[in-house]
């Protein structure tokens, strides 16, 4: 029997880990960026970023003051009674204990709820399918997303005939427009196809995949590599102050779409790409999944 308390503690730990320990794939990419960086101001900033990552991990403090709006991705079986309530409780406790910055406000009044809970927030994505229901575990992924990069997110309903060329132009323009505002060096999540909302959601899900793992489909893996190599020739650099690394990784997720549409979405993720994942099995066994 899995108790609500067990799930609450697990979700708390996921939040704590994500907020204080940067995944290894991201940290490695930042260290590699410092190795090859030639711009002095960029080097100062990358060193500062690495120092901050180490300090946050050692002292278990939030890497960035913008601890984001909590977002959860759930797959597999539903593990306990009042599952959703339990997740929300964990967010509330984490906000007070870690502590996290209370970021959640009413959209028009801008009044802060003080505990990171609000109408429909934290948002919980569920993956429902026959296969998922058969699993003997629940997989919980937590991703906090800061506002600086979230504000740069973009959806384009491109002309289908523009194809790959249209996609390249769209992504390049989005990166140019974001400039230093999304806290580069950043990770790009691309959602291609589906529909308007599916493309945006896929672009978010793309950010959950480690940046050293390419898309299973060779064609999309090639586009990921092509965009990464090309965009780093821009010399936009860390924080938009110039430098050799603008983008740490490009991840794509795609879906088939209507013959008359070509939705493309770009989700930006700052260098502080925070995520944590765990599975809890039917018998209560917990497995933390290294997401790198």
């Amino acid at each position, binding site marked *: 029997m899995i108790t609500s308390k067990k799930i609450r503690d697990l979700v708390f730990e996921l939040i704590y880990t994500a907020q204080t320990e940067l995944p290894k794939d991201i940290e490695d990419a930042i260290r590699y960026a410092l190795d090859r960086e030639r711009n002095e101001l960029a080097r100062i900033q990358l060193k500062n970023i690495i120092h901050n990552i180490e300090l946050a991990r050692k002292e278990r403090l*939030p890497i*960035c003051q*913008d601890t984001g709006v909590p977002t959860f991705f759930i797959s597999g079986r539903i593990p306990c009674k009042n599952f959703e309530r339990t997740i929300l409780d964990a967010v509330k406790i984490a906000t007070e204990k870690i502590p996290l*910055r*209370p970021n959640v406000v009413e959209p028009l009044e801008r009044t802060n709820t003080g505990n990171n809970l609000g109408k429909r927030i934290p948002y919980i994505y569920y993956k429902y399918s026959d296969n998922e229901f058969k699993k003997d575990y629940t997989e919980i992924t937590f991703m906090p997303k800061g506002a600086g990069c979230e504000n740069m997110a973009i959806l384009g309903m491109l002309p289908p005939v523009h194809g790959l060329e249209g996609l390249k132009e769209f992504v390049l323009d989005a990166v140019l427009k974001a400039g230093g505002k999304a806290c580069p060096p950043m990770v790009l999540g691309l959602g291609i196809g589906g529909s308007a909302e599916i493309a945006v959601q896929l672009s978010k899900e793309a950010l959950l995949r480690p940046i050293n793992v390419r898309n299973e489909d060779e064609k999309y893996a090639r586009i990921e590599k092509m965009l990464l190599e090309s965009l780093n020739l821009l010399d936009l650099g860390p924080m938009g102050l110039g430098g050799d690394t603008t983008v740490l990784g490009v991840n794509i997720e795609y879906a088939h779409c209507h013959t008359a549409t070509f939705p493309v979405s770009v989700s930006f993720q700052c260098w502080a790409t925070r995520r944590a994942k765990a599975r809890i099995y039917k018998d209560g066994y917990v497995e933390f999944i290294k997401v790198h």
Partner: protein
Amino acid sequence: MENMEYKLQIPISENEVRNLRIGDVVYLKGLVYTFRDMGHRRALELAEKDEKLPVELYRKAVFHCGPIMKKENGKWFCISAGPTTSSRLNYIEPVFIKKFRPSAIIGKGGMDKKTLDALEEVSCVYLAATGGTAVALAKRITDVKGVFWYDLGMPESLWVLEVKNFGPLIVAMDAHQGSIYDEVSKKVKINETKVRKKLASYL
């Protein structure tokens, strides 16, 4: 020209500000005030009614930041405090700078031409902190001297922070119309052609 490194005490004099050039690296000591979207708005609303701000900003440093704070035994502590995206304040910053005449604005991502003009007019610089380095910066906050406008919520409140060796901060926009963002964007414009060519070469 060689980039210089400076340790500056707040308040920062007009001469010291005018001495700074883009690319210089600065570490600050003294009192820093956090102002975000709502704080800027409220400050100007008060000024319009001829009411005083709870703090004096003349020749001081304004920090675009919404920190994580924790209260223990009645005392506030700063947990994490990095810069927020400054461009959200483009619409209000020029008026704010001219009204309160600070010596430094600390933020990230850069600001627009009107802000650059205001920086020149009052002798003020825009200092870029590295986004996300919030624990490292919080370590350089030695004391939380107070908080105003807490009704705006923790991120938007006006926090009075005492800092030491606060940096590295990069002079990204100076009081002489210099802007690293403009320089980078010119370079990026040239590189754009290279990138388009490389992208086109892939099938």
